[in-house]
């Protein structure tokens, strides 16, 4: 992996293509969960074009995956603003939650309603941690906030979810 990044930094097209292929699906899903399937391809493409332009600035302070998701996060937010779409729209993934039929302990409709009530900041960390399965440090890197803030937001998000689920 490290070798490929170094090669891509030096302008090796093959290495760059390999990096794109390797991370494409992950970045695409990340984007799709934020701005929807319609614009996910555009945002993903922008993310990799930015990667191509700024890969030489990648200092390995985080993993390439996290770094890419950080870029994708910004592109998705900008694209959503430009297109007048809601960033991390509830329909993008809460509706999917409700559609899924599985053996569920928690009422899906209640969960959907509770998630909808979360603030954007709380929903954002829940999405990044529970769905994207990112660690606190990576979330902090992507959002540009201290790790303690991520921990706090997640804690309060779950407290709120529990309260609203109990109420329902």
């Amino acid at each position, binding site marked *: 992996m490290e070798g490929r990044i170094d090669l891509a930094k030096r302008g090796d*097209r093959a290495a*760059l*293509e390999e990096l*794109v*292929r390797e991370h*494409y*699906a992950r970045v*695409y*899903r990340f984007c*799709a*969960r934020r701005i929807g*399937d319609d614009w*996910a*391809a*555009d945002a*993903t*493409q922008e993310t*990799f*074009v930015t*990667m*191509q*332009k*700024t890969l030489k600035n990648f200092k390995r302070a985080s993993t390439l995956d996290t770094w890419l998701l950080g870029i994708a996060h*910004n592109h998705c937010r900008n694209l959503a603003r430009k297109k007048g779409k809601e960033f991390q729209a509830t329909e*993008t*993934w809460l509706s*999917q*939650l409700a559609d*899924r039929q*599985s053996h*569920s*302990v*928690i009422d*899906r409709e209640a*969960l959907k309603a509770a998630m909808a009530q979360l603030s954007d900041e709380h929903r954002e960390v*829940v999405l990044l*941690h*529970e*769905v994207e*399965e990112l*660690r*606190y440090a990576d979330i902090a890197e992507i959002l*540009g*906030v201290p790790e303690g803030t991520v*921990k*706090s937001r*997640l*804690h309060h998000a*779950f407290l709120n*979810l*529990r309260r609203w*689920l109990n109420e329902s």
Partner: protein
Amino acid sequence: MNPELDSVLEDLKAFVDGELSPERAKVVQAAIDQNLSLRQEVEFMKTLSGEIKSSSVEPSPKGLEETLSKVRKPVFFLPLWSRYVAAAACGVFMIGLFGQMVFQPGSSGGSETSAIASKTSGPMAGKSADIAPSESESKGETSAGHEEKPAPTAGGEGLDSSVSSPPAKESDVFARRTETNKPKYKTRTQSPPQTGSGTRGSARYVTPPPTVKEGSRHVIRNANMGIKVKDVQKAVSDTTTQVMAMGGIVDSSNYTASDETSGATVQFSVPEKNFNAILDTLRKMGRVIKDQINSQDVTHEIADGDGRINALADEEANLISELSRTRDSYTRLEIRQRLSNVRQEIESIKEQNKATRGLAAMSSVTVEFQKTDSLDNQNSGWIDETTKGASGLLGFFGRVFGVGLIYTVMLAPVWLPIVAIAWWLKRKSKVS
């Protein structure tokens, strides 16, 4: 509430996610083991996490090939800071240009030209004695020659030396201040004339002195022209004929010829009213390589002289009156002496005014004719003119660009830190 329990509750989610340090995890684990509600909380969190994870959508990636084709193309990317620097530099550049255009002393219009012309000659009236010769020269004044050696009414000798070689410094200032003001008057000036030298230095466009309202002002005007012609003798003859037809006279004429070249210098005195018409005629004689006009406003000098005459006339009348009343021989003798002095002074001033008026009535035109080189014929004149015009314009743009660049560089200590701070703030806000 138990503070310890609260602290454990806050760390419970992190404990479930495995994000606590081993030491803290041990403490939380111990608390969970001892507290049923905490165990239930942990179970709920795990269940909720599992629900969310299991329900997350998994969209099928699309557009991989398009992205690959996009990244295969080489890209040119300017870093963010360079955009800030470029924008700031452009801003400073434009401010510099604007400032240069607005606040430059010579850019306020044609009146500035007029002021300079007057300044050159204005202090002349009755003050030449107060000005040291060197100072007078440095100001480009011609008063000394006029007052000490008044020229005849139609003559131009008194003007010749001063007009044909104006001080270069004043001429430069005049040219620099006027070249941007009225570009429609395209005349050219060169270094001071040297008979037969054939100088073809870089020509500059200057504005001729302002037109003065006839009758109300007295202006001595002098022109110095260099013209390349095919036949010098014919040109001299034709010019003389035409100038004389317009009321001018030939003051001096000098023709020189050798195997390789020939040239002539002719000096005319021409009526002020026909000055411009004669210049236009001369410009049509051949290719103009030098076209220099100087003007000197002597209105104040004449007015000052008239005023002094009036004052002296009053004094004369007083002395006459006093003379008639005085019987003492010695006193009468003294009054007569004073009366004589006053009358002499009146006559002197009258003559000076008369001479100055004469100079203003007749302008001086000096023309240097040079034979055109065999290759440098008349037909190529327009190419030369165009080339010079274009190079002049290029020089102008170069100067404008240079001015902007100097402003940008010199003001870098001001705008660069501002840009750096703006960029840093932008980055900071982006991160947060």
